[in-house]
């Protein structure tokens, strides 16, 4: 999907809107199918995003404004 860079909140919001639209009465079938497909796609996107087990990285900004990265430490009780 091209919205790789979209914010999660954005996508969730759109999904919410689509769900609301689909719940409206008298929505034309074609539109409903479009909404449905888009909605399923978005929910999949959200799922995938959540499922991504990326190695979490925190960025550290130093005194000079330069950024370096720091890997998250795995917590021992997890």
């Amino acid at each position, binding site marked *: 999907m091209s919205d790789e860079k979209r914010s999660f909140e954005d996508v969730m919001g759109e999904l*919410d809107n689509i769900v609301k639209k689909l719940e409206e009465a008298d*929505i034309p079938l074609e539109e409903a*199918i479009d909404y449905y497909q888009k909605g399923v796609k978005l929910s999949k996107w959200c799922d995938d995003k*959540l499922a991504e087990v990326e190695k979490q990285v925190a960025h550290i*900004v130093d005194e000079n404004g330069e950024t370096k990265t720091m890997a998250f430490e795995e917590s021992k009780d997890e």
Partner: protein
Amino acid sequence: MNPKYLTVTALTRYIKRKFELDDHLSTVWLKAEISNFKHHSRGHMYFTLKDDNARILAVMFAGYNRFLKFKPEDGMDVIVKGQVNVYEPQGQYQLYVHEMIPDGVGALHLAFEQLKNKLEKEGLFDQQNKKNIPTIPRHLGIITSETGAAIRDILTTIRRRFPLVKVTLFPALVQGDGAKYDLVKKLEQANDDQTIDTLILARGGGSIEELWPFNEEMVARAVAASHIPIISGIGHETDFTIVDFIADLRAATPTGAAELAVPSKKDIANQIESNRRTLHRGIKAVINRNEAKLNKIQSSYAFKYPKQLLSQKEQELDRLIESIHRNMKSNLTKQQFHYHQLMSRLHSKHPTQQIKLNQQKAGYLTNALENNFKSHFRNKVVQFEKQLDKLKVLSPLETMKRGYGIGYSSSGSLIKSVKQVAPGEQVTFKLQDGYLDCQIWGIEEDQNE
């Protein structure tokens, strides 16, 4: 002399009124040492506050002293806040203590309270000035020490709850003299990054002195000035700093701040699942609705009995064809009738009759012609015969019988005069019984004629 008397009560009340009217005495911060401390069985505390040169009686009623986090005792240096007033029965002025804190720490508390009052009056704590925290942040900025429990707790919490968010740490000094400058600097630095939508300002637990940078006015004002919403998570549950009051959202601990900053992955997953279910339900409802519509259309008369529709049309067609035939026929009949009429009229006008008539006429006429001709002819014959008889009488031949002849010149013309001929000319003489060829020998003309 009429001396004026006052009662003791009146005087005491007058003095008491003077105390009450004095603003300075209505709220007093006092630093002193406790002596003669007595905690009465009914809950009130009675003691003397003193320094090297003076003392004042003090009372702290149960309603106030039950909030004390420590037990006052003789010799303890404290800072108290209270009101000076007069206790009439004893004629004593004394300090009615509302708050008491141990000194040392107490000085800080005093500064804290004063700054808190000041900033509160400025409206910096007002709820309506608080910014909303994004439900799902994209980029989380964290201002805290690079080392220590706070950052570890925060990162662990974020990892557990919502690893989608981008995290940027702005390492800061969180205790010591330089901390306030560093905190302000990091707040400004974080605000320079336009992508950061949530800031956590955190520090692990510690003594009030250790947490002090978060009570500094410049830090408080920097927090207030931040355009990024800030969640504070400083110390433990019981610790409140000025920054906590100003922050857009206050969490009790760094872990708490992280929890407030990011949503739980599980909650989000649930929400997605719920949305997905609603989507399925929604599309199913739409499909059902349309299916019902389609069914209704399919069960309509035209779809169900197409043959009927056709036969109806056929019937109609038959009717029309019949009608055409009928019309044609009637038209034809009419035309035929007309034709017959014309024919009979024509027949009635046929010329045979006339021909017959005319033939008859012609017959009559022919007969008449013949009869007329015959009678005419007979008449003529009779006339002719009469004429012939007359002619017979007049004919020269009869005369010639009596000896007369007729002379003809060579050219055949009748010679009536001697001038018609010349001597030598051949002439012919007709007599009763033939011709004489003669030649003129001489001519003698009569003179007396």
